[in-house]
């Protein structure tokens, strides 16, 4: 009996195991969605995690409310500008915004102990003085619910507006221009480190060049950047050191004179979110702001000795006004391109020769690269999505494109006269074209030829880049009539029909030459799509039939899409037919 009971029990166990197992296996979900990490508004908080030292954290990160701490001191009567040295080191009259003050080694234990010593000790001291204090227990700082919060401050853009403001204000206060207040360079050859930081007039540049540590640079700047890295002077640290100290000084001045409330804006912000607003000025807003004066030429004539083509007259002034900062083109230093990029290439230029420096199609810093990117804007892309980048173009017969820039030294205005459709012969360039060559299911498409040309001419005239490069109206025609030469287009009696090259039936030998139906659809819809138009593109129209945007469905048209002539009515009788038997 005992044995039988044992068998029964074992049997039941197995049964449960199998049934539960089947259930678990049948309901398994193969995909796991990653939990989203919430990002909170920064609000002057700082996330202390130091994952570069601690690796995977044992306890949750600490979200430190900086403003709360400064306000706590202000409430007790301290002045705002005097609260900093409670926690931060003062060195030679300027603050170093590091914390904790004493970190001997950069390893887990030392850092942890340093934080604990300073934070918890201060809290303990204050609560022993019966003042409002902070937590001393682990979990009150290392809060579990703040484990996966991200505190992200948007980058602060020191754009031309801010620079100009600083220049003007400081001139007001000091009576003269003094760029050395902020700008300096590092003399790498100076042996005495104390004296290495010098100011040389005419070499003022962006902080980014030396202090943006995680960028690849040329040998000269890389050495300087290494020094900055050794001193821990990343862009963040350097700019906080430079900016905050100066702001605090002026704040102190205004505060001592009792003018802090009125001059709050005058003194410059010291709160995180006041600078890191996340709001950025557009190019249009910055266009009228005067650029920093460094005696830069307005229209330099770029001419390389021993180069094959004529030199280029470059409108530097215009280009300054249409970019947010100089680093877009002056990516390494604020010198001229050919100072580092020679005809054959130098180490300073990373081996990039001057031709490539100006013409690289994919670079963000070269002329061509930037122009290429501009061509993919909404107004331009309709024609330009189908036109190969200049590099490929000039390999072909269209070498006259080079002459547009390489025109030698031009003393007069650089812009061209606007294009006009008035130049066109109305007999040859039809106002409206009815496309009925493939008419079957749909009514003929009514194509507003002249209107489209007008619109494109309009866009071209309004855009300085387009206006410069579209030297005549034939260029606009080539946007659609892409393979026929300009002379052929002006023949009245044989217009440049698409069907002249694109056959109705597919050409299996030349797959590149798509058939006529496809040519119309791809050309038209491609352009509408690239220019992000509502009608007639891949973007869905809200209601109605997309096809009807260009051609309406015939009311009594054929039902079928395909041409089923020659196809047997009873295909299932044939050996090759594998479909449904009827």
């Amino acid at each position, binding site marked *: 009996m005992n*044995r039988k009971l044992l*068998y029964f029990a*074992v049997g039941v166990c*197995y049964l449960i*195991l*199998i049934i539960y*197992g*089947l259930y*678990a*296996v*049948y*309901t*398994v*979900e*193969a*995909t796991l969605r990653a939990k989203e990490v919430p990002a909170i508004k920064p609000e002057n908080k700082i996330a202390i995690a130091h994952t570069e030292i601690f690796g995977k954290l044992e306890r949750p990160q600490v979200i430190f409310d900086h403003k709360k701490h400064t306000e706590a001191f202000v409430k007790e009567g301290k002045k705002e500008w005097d609260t900093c040295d409670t926690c931060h080191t003062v060195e030679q009259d300027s603050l170093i915004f590091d914390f904790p003050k004493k970190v001997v080694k950069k390893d887990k234990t030392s850092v942890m102990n340093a934080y604990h010593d300073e934070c918890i000790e201060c809290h303990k001291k204050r609560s022993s003085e019966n003042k409002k204090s902070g937590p001393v227990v682990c979990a009150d700082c290392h809060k579990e619910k703040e484990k996966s919060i991200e505190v992200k401050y948007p980058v602060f853009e020191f754009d031309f507006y801010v620079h100009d403001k600083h220049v003007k204000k400081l001139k007001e206060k000091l009576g003269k221009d003094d760029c050395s207040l902020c700008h300096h360079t590092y003399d790498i050859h100076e042996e005495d480190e104390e004296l290495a930081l010098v100011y040389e007039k005419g070499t003022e540049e962006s902080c980014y060049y030396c202090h943006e540590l995680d960028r690849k640079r040329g040998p000269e700047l890389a050495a300087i950047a290494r020094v900055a890295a050794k001193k821990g002077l990343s862009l963040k640290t350097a700019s906080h050191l430079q900016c905050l100290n100066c702001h605090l000084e002026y704040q102190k001045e205004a505060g001592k004179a009792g003018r802090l409330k009125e001059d709050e804006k005058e003194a410059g912000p010291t709160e995180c979110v006041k600078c890191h607003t996340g709001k950025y000025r557009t190019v249009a807003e910055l266009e009228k702001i005067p650029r920093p004066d460094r005696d830069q030429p307005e229209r330099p004539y770029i001419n390389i000795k021993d180069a094959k083509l004529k030199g280029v007259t470059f409108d530097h002034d215009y280009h300054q006004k249409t970019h947010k900062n100089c680093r877009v083109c002056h990516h390494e230093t604020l010198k001229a391109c050919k100072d580092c990029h020679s005809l054959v290439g130098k180490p300073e230029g990373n081996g990039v020769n001057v031709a490539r420096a100006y013409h690289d199609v994919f670079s963000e810093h070269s002329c061509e690269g930037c122009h290429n990117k501009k061509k993919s804007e909404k107004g331009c892309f309709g024609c330009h999505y189908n036109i190969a980048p200049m590099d490929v173009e000039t390999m072909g017969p269209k070498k006259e494109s080079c002459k547009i820039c390489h025109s030698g030294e031009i003393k007069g205005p650089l812009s061209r006269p606007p294009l006009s459709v008035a130049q066109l012969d109305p007999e040859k360039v039809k106002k409206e074209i009815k496309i009925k060559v493939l008419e079957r299911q749909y009514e003929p498409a009514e194509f507003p030829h002249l209107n489209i040309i007008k619109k494109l001419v309009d866009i071209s005239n309004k855009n300085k880049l387009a206006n410069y490069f579209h030297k005549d109206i034939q260029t606009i025609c080539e946007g659609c009539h892409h393979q026929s030469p300009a002379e052929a287009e002006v023949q009245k009696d044989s217009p440049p029909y698409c069907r002249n090259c694109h056959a109705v039936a597919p050409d299996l030998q030349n797959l590149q030459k798509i058939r006529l139906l496809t040519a119309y659809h791809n050309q038209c819809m491609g352009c509408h799509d690239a220019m992000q138009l509502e009608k007639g593109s891949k973007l869905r129209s809200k209601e109605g039939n997309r096809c009807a945007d260009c051609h309406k469905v015939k009311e009594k048209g054929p039902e079928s899409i395909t041409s089923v002539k020659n196809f047997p009515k009873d295909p299932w009788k044939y050996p090759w037919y594998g479909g449904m038997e009827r």
Partner: protein
Amino acid sequence: MEKTEKREIRTIGEFWEFFKSELKPKGNPWTPFNLISGTVMVLGFIFIIYRFLTGLSPTTNLSQMYPWGIWKGAVVNSGVAFAGGGYTLAFIVYILGLERYRPMLRETVLFAFLAYVFYAGALTVELGRWHVFYNPFIGNKYGVSSVLFIVAWHFMLYIVTLALEFSPAAAEWVGMKRARKILGAAALGAVVFGVMLSIHHQAGLGAMFTMAKGKLHPLWYSEFMPILYFISSIYAGPSVMIVVSSITQRLYAHRVDEEYRKAHPQIVLGLGRMCIGVIFAYLFLQLILVHHEHDLQYINTAMGLWWLVEVGALGLIPMFLFIHGVQHKNLSTINMAAVLALIGVLLNRLNNVFIAYNWYLPLSLKYRPTWMEVIILFTIIFIDVWVFRWIINRMHVLSKPPEWARAMEKH
């Protein structure tokens, strides 16, 4: 019990009379088992006819993502493994010459033969276009690159081989002496041929899944599936025979002769001992494969735990039970081990067919057998059992062949 010299049947007429007399039930036909299985079989017949009239969709839950279901899984994939006793036991008796296993041989061969016949029949129910099922055999294209082609042909040839191996018993039943002599002489050749065929099609069942690479869970799929299937059939067959023979020893004790009754414990022990080694080889191969293909990372998932259930609870534990049973000569432990081992093989095959196949689909798309499918499955099993029972009660399956037949045997 042994009868004296039977009259020999020479004409079809005589055979028909004899057959009709044999159809009469021996004993009470209204047992509970008969009633239940009879009901199921009647229902099953109706459903089978319904399936032939309306196609697979109304009767089964097969879908485009699960083309094979419980019929292919339980009947073809597992049933064939269970019938593996046919070739393993024949190998032991005829090739290795271990005579003490001979008493179980006829029962095993009969079981295997009926299993194959009825599972081939079940396949016909399962085929989408069963009315042209003869195409692979007559040459309406020999699909020589297809694993299923090999399996189908081997099925057919193996059924013939098993029929040949069992035919001496049938000859004795009708008393045809000359036929008995000829058929008995063909035994060794049939066995050798049968072993070869078995290796091919047991491995072939596994090879059918080799092209389902992206769809089977990595813990079940490997390129060595044919070998795993073959090895598992080596122990699945004897495990089933241990269980079946234990049942028949009790239920049909009146047909079992003294020699078999005495030898049965030793046979079971011996088979148990063999199973230990084979299960060990199987588990070892599984371990190597899982490790080699870096699949151990999946153990910590639901599917991984299910794999552990199949390989551990229904693979490793039976092995230990076998060891225990053989050491202590405990037949009931060996029986339990055999039951668990065969459930493990069944589960492995079902996993390959529809549980671990397309395992990442949501529950709504997964395959669950309809009750009609289950009833048809049991119908086939019950028909098999009824025919098995009928033959055991009439032919010399559980007992030694009659004197005159034994005299013909050369050994």
